[in-house]
Every structure is written in structure tokens, then in C-alpha cells.
């Protein structure tokens, strides 16, 4: 029962446009059916190998409010050339725009355009929580916590934001994002301050620190600023939050709320390099990065956490974007290949009560909910996400399939594919039953073992391994 070597490698690209830096990686992901021959197929990513790393570029800006889209595209085009690939070769991946870059006026336009260029199945993705998770995976914190059976947090301290994710024995348990980074203040080679982020003075107010461009930096001021920002970061990590966290937490993110202590901490992002290398030159990068790193070094000595080295520092986010955003899902598909890739499908999560009713063939609540959802999303193609049952009976499957077909006929157009995503393992049975119940010959796609939240989006790539699985990317799009 061998599946053969055919099309079991995915070339995945990761592009990270951060507050300060932009970089790209290419990786090869191997997909295999890891189930024993006598078991039902279980398709997994079995190896993840980084095959190309770009240099770290400064993120090109036209002004403080706008990214320079042409320059960014040029960087990526050049990197594709030097890696020896074309967009056609790329199967999957993510363009992720993080930190303050996500707040720029043209952020959405640029990521959308870039993802169109970068390959057929490369998605634009952003959102503070997602960044935290991606950085934590890229930094190797997730696998560290799994291997050592512990609670480990990653602090990805970048130019504009610090993304924090916490893993417990390999499971993500919490994530947050605060508006603190090395580039909240910038100064020229003569020590004259050229830029101050509003966010710096927001937290500075708590200690009566106020900075405006034109002031000059010195050792003492740098130490004060480093002390301030590292306190804000530690405040977010601690289980008791003070006013700093309230002020600094990024919009759309929530503060950490854990019932057990963090044991280990890894650091990533640009500031992590300064930390691990014990950088002494305070003014090296014309920002606060080194000052924050030095202050953290001092403070961690009296903290209960053990600091461990991360696998990636400044490239943690881009590595995470390239390697950890793509997943594969076993599938039941009655499809024509032309419909793939399905991009940016907003996911409609059927409410708990509504789903219960579906097992009784009562679709009223679900149709009502879907009506509101369709009004808001203004997208014809959607994915319907259900929890599914751990122990479904045959009758459950029949009723569920009938209900879903009814919802489809009532609410979705005749030429839009019916995409059903289930958390529990039931895609084959449900998919076959939907095929049986559906009256037209529309494309039906049923995937399981997928966990999504309301408001998430999903991209579904071309079927792989003779159609027994598809690559998917789940994402949260938040542009202000």
C-alpha cells in the first residue's frame, strides 16, 4: 500500500514584512501518509527543511504612513532569482505583515499584490495573535516545550511590537502582543532623536518620561528607556498585570491569562540577537534595541524563568511563516481540479446550538446565522465549519448531510462549492453522504481535523498524494 513518491513535496515560501526588517525563506515540506498499512490514512508533514534564506533587508518605506510596495516586490523578485525559482514552483506559503507595518495605509493592498505574485497558493496573512504563534513556532519554542514537557514562552521583540506566545507541552495555551519594540525611538549618528512612536510616550507617561524628536540621547537616557520598555515586556509576561499591559497591549490582542507559571523563556526578533550576543554598543542600530536587551539581561537574573536559546532569532517570524502556516488535511473531495486553489474563504462557524439542531434535521437556526454571516462577509464562497461528533452514529451522519445540503440549497449559489470543515474525524463518511444527498453536480469538499475560530479564513490548495489530502492554510486577517 505504498503511496509512491509522486507529488509528496511542497515548496513553501515565507515572506515577513516587519516594522523594521523584511526577509524571505524557502522551505521544502514533505507530506506522507504516516498511518500503518492496516490503518486509515493519516497524512502529515513529515519533514520541514529550510532550503534558502534571504538576507535581512530594511523594510522600504515611502513615508511614515506608507510602505514602498515596488521596492518590496523588487526585493522578493531578486530573492526568487537568486534562489533559482519562479512563482510557478511555489506550492504554498504565507506573506505575513507584522508589527507597525500592518498599520500602514497600504498594508493590505501590498500583501494582497505580493501574494498574487509570489505563487499560486501563497496567502496574505496578518494579525497580532497569529504573529505571536508563528514566531513561537519559528523560534522553536513550541518543540522545546513539547520535548521537555514544560511551559515555555517566546518573546519575539521586533522593531514595533513584542509578540508573546506560551506553549505547554507543545500545545499553544496563550498569546499576546504588545506595542513595544526596539524602534519606538530612532536617532541619527550624532545622537539626535529623529523619530518617536506615540506608543513610547504612552507608556513613558507612567514614569513621567516624555520624548520628542530633536532631543539628544545619552547613556543615562538610553538606560532609562531600556528599563522602561523591558518593564513593560516583563509586565505582560507576569501573571499579575499592571497598567503597562493595559496601555501597551496591541489592538485586537488580549493580555496573557494563565493559571500556571511560565518556566522557560526564549527570545526572538531583532532584539534577541543583541540579547544572546550580549551586545555592548548601545548605539549600534540607532535605536533602543540594545538598550532593551541589556535591561532584560539584568532583570532576568532576578526573575524565576530560565532563559534558553531559540532556534531562530531575527528570522523566527519568517521561518514560522514559511514552515508552520501550511498544514495538510485528509479529505473527501468530489471535485474538479480547476476549483483549486480556493483562496480567502471566510469561515462560517455553526453555533453550538445550531449544530445540535442539524443532527435533528432542523436547519432553522443555522440558516439564520448563515444569513447574517453572508450579509457581513460579502463573499459568495464560504467554508462551513462544524465541530462534528467524536462518536457519530450512521443516523447522525445522514441527518447532518441532509441538513448541510438543505442549507446549501437555501443559502449558497448553485455554482459555489460546498466546503465543509469538521473538527472531529468524520470527513469521509460525511463527504460521501453529502455527495449522495446533493441534487446538483456542484463541487463538494469535506475536510476534517481542522480547528478554526469564527472570523478565520482558509486557503485550500490543489489535492496532493493522489487526492487523499489537500494543503491548507488557516489565517486571521486583521487590517486596520
Amino acid at each position, binding site marked *: *500500500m*505504498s*503511496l*509512491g513518491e509522486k507529488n509528496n513535496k511542497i515548496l513553501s515560501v515565507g515572506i515577513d514584512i516587519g516594522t523594521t526588517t523584511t526577509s524571505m525563506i524557502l522551505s521544502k515540506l514533505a507530506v506522507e501518509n504516516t498511518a500503518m498499512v*492496516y*490503518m*486509515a*490514512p493519516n497524512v502529515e508533514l513529515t519533514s520541514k527543511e529550510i532550503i534558502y534564506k534571504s538576507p535581512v533587508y530594511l523594510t522600504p518605506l515611502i513615508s511614515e504612513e506608507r510602505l514602498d510596495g515596488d521596492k518590496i516586490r523588487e526585493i522578493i523578485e531578486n530573492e526568487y532569482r537568486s534562489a533559482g525559482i519562479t512563482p510557478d514552483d511555489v506550492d504554498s506559503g504565507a506573506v505575513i505583515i507584522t508589527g507597525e507595518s500592518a498599520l500602514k495605509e497600504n498594508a493590505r493592498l501590498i500583501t494582497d499584490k505580493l501574494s498574487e505574485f509570489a505563487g499560486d497558493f501563497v496567502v496574505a496573512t496578518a494579525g497580532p495573535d497569529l504573529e505571536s504563534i508563528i514566531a513561537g513556532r519559528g523560534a522553536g519554542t513550541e518543540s522545546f516545550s*513539547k520535548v*521537555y*514537557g*514544560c*511551559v515555555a514562552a517566546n518573546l519575539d521583540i521586533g522593531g514595533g511590537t513584542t509578540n508573546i506566545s506560551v506553549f*505547554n*507541552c*507543545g500545545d499553544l495555551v496563550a498569546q499576546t502582543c504588545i506595542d513595544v519594540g526596539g524602534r519606538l525611538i530612532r536617532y541619527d549618528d550624532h545622537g539626535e532623536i529623529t523619530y518617536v512612536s506615540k506608543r513610547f510616550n504612552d507608556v513613558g507617561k507612567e514614569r513621567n518620561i516624555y520624548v520628542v524628536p530633536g532631543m539628544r540621547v545619552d547613556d543615562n537616557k538610553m538606560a532609562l528607556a531600556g528599563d522602561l520598555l523591558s518593564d513593560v515586556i516583563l509586565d505582560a509576561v507576569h501573571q499579575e498585570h499592571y497598567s503597562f499591559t493595559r496601555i501597551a497591549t496591541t489592538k485586537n490582542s488580549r493580555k496573557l491569562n494563565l493559571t*500556571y507559571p511560565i518556566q522557560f523563556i526564549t527570545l526572538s526578533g531583532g532584539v534577541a540577537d543583541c540579547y544572546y550576543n550580549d551586545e555592548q554598543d548601545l548605539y549600534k542600530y540607532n535605536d533602543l534595541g540594545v538598550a532593551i536587551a541589556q535591561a532584560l539581561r539584568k532583570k532576568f537574573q532576578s526573575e524565576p524563568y530560565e532563559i534558553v536559546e531559540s532556534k531562530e532569532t531575527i528570522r523566527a517570524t519568517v521561518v514560522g511563516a514559511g514552515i508552520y502556516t501550511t498544514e495538510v488535511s485528509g479529505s*473527501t473531495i468530489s471535485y474538479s481540479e480547476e476549483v483549486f486553489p480556493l483562496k480567502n474563504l471566510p469561515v462560517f462557524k455553526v453555533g453550538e446550538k445550531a449544530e445540535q439542531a442539524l443532527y435533528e434535521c432542523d436547519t432553522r437556526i443555522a440558516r439564520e446565522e448563515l444569513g447574517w454571516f453572508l450579509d457581513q462577509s460579502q463573499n459568495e464562497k464560504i467554508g462551513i465549519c462544524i465541530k462534528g461528533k*467524536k*462518536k*457519530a*452514529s*450512521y443516523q*447522525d*451522519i445522514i441527518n447532518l448531510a441532509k441538513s448541510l445540503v438543505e442549507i446549501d440549497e437555501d443559502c449558497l449559489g448553485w455554482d459555489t462549492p460546498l466546503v465543509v470543515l469538521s473538527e472531529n*474525524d*468524520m*470527513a*469521509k*463518511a460525511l*463527504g*460521501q453522504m453529502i*455527495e*449522495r444527498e446533493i441534487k446538483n453536480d456542484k463541487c463538494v469538499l469535506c475536510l476534517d481535523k481542522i480547528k478554526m475560530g469564527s472570523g478565520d479564513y482558509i486557503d485550500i490548495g490543489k489535492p496532493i498524494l493522489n487526492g487523499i489530502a489537500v494543503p491548507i492554510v488557516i489565517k486571521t486577517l486583521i487590517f486596520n
Partner: protein
Amino acid sequence: MDNRQLVDLITKEVMKVLRENGLLDEPYSDGGWSGTDTSLLDLTSKEYKDTIQVTDPENQLAINAMRRSTTARVGIGRAGARLTTKAMLSLRADHAMAKDAVLKAADENILREMNLPVIQSQAREINEHLTRPDLGRKLPPESVDFIKKNCKMNPQVQIYVSDGLSNSAIDENIREILPALMDGLKHRGIDTGTPFFVRFGRVPTMDVISEITGAEVTVVLLGERPGLAAADSMSAYMAYKATVGMPESRRTVVSNIHKNGIQPVEAGAYLVEIIEKMLQTKSSGVDLVL
């Protein structure tokens, strides 16, 4: 009378005698002692097993993660060099479940409900079935006659059910997997034969049945030898044009079909795909490339 009723009855009798002899202070209340009491945990339940823990562990989180990753009895603590009483009781209870699964008969109500007539292998009773696998592989003349008289001949797919070594597997799974499989094949336009139940059957009994019915593909849904982790595990053995004495490598199997393994409905749907492929490629076992 089912087990539950029997237990209730015995409990009631014992309590009565105890009370009559003045050995019981409490007035007897049915809710407190019979099987309906919810405060006592089933020794084989997950809830009970969750209470078996290492005392004062260095890293509880790591133990939890390890325990989640396996059904083996890890992280259960010890009393000196031995198992704790709780762990011991749980082991014994699981062992009892496994023995029950082998020795009890499949629920006849379920077989009737699923419309499965019962025939028997050459083994005459359970002990012969367990000690003489050679007899379990053969059918007596009356069973052969029954099939010839009552079953559709030369179907594309012949499906039947057999107890094998776990009757619990039949009771727990057959209501979900059989209709999912039969309806699934029908929907794809595949012609299926008349299903039935073979008591005291072994895997190679399917070869005999394949020869009698002349089916292209023969499928048996069979109870697997129970272990301490699952007593109700079922397998589906399938072969293209099975013949008596053919090599084992011609069989395809999907195993671990039970509530904590592959869900029976999901397994049914998966089998439909495999069987379709067998018919297309006219092959099974190691020759079949899935």
C-alpha cells in the same frame, strides 16, 4: 434478562439477607447500591483511570502529555515495587472486559435488527472455537447449503460479519459500519450480496465463502482479539477473488475500528473507497496500490 437486571436482582437479594441478619445498619435504598448509582465510577472508564496518578510528581504537565499520547498504562505511580490498588483494579477490570468480549455471545437483538441470519463454522461451541482454529476456518454442509439457498450468487461484493475473538466488537460497531458500507457501495453502483453472520468464524473462513458465493470481492467485518486497551476492536479483511489456501499477502485489512480508534461510520466510508479500487484494479493485499 440482561446483565444489569441480573446485577440489580442479586444486589437486592444480598442486601435483603444482610438486613435480615442485622448486618446492615442503613435502611436499604435501591439508588445507593444498584448499578444506577452514578457516584461510583466504572473501573474501566476514562474518568476512573484519570484518578490513577503519580503521587507528588516532579512534572505533572509532562506526565499528562505522555498519557495523552498512548493508551498504555504510563504515569500510574506505584506502591513499593508493585501496582497501586487502583491501578491493579483497573487492570483486572480491563482484563475481565477482554475475557468477556471473547466468551460472551453477540447480542442477538442487534443481529436481528441488522437483518443478519446466523450460520456457524465447523466449531461446535466456544471452547472448540478457541482451541481449534482449523475448524473455525471451515463451514459445515448445513451452513454451505444455507448460503447457496438464501444468498445472492456471484455478487460484485459479498459482505458478512463474524464474531472472531470479540463479540463486543460486533455489538458496539456493526450498527454503524454495516449500513455505512452497504449504502456507500450501493450509491456508487456496486452490487452487493446478502450479508449474514458467521458464529465461531476465523479470518480464512472468508476464503470458503468467497468460493461458495463466487463474489469478486469478499469482505468480513470481524471482532479482533481483545487487548487491555480495547475489547471492542473490529477489523475489515478484504480480498479479491479469495480462494482457500491462497497466501495471506492477498488480504487487505483495515483494523482498529472502534470508538477510540477509527470511528465505525468513518471506517465504513473508507472501506467503500478501498473496495471500489479493488474492483477497478482487480487486486488486493500487497498488489493493491492505494
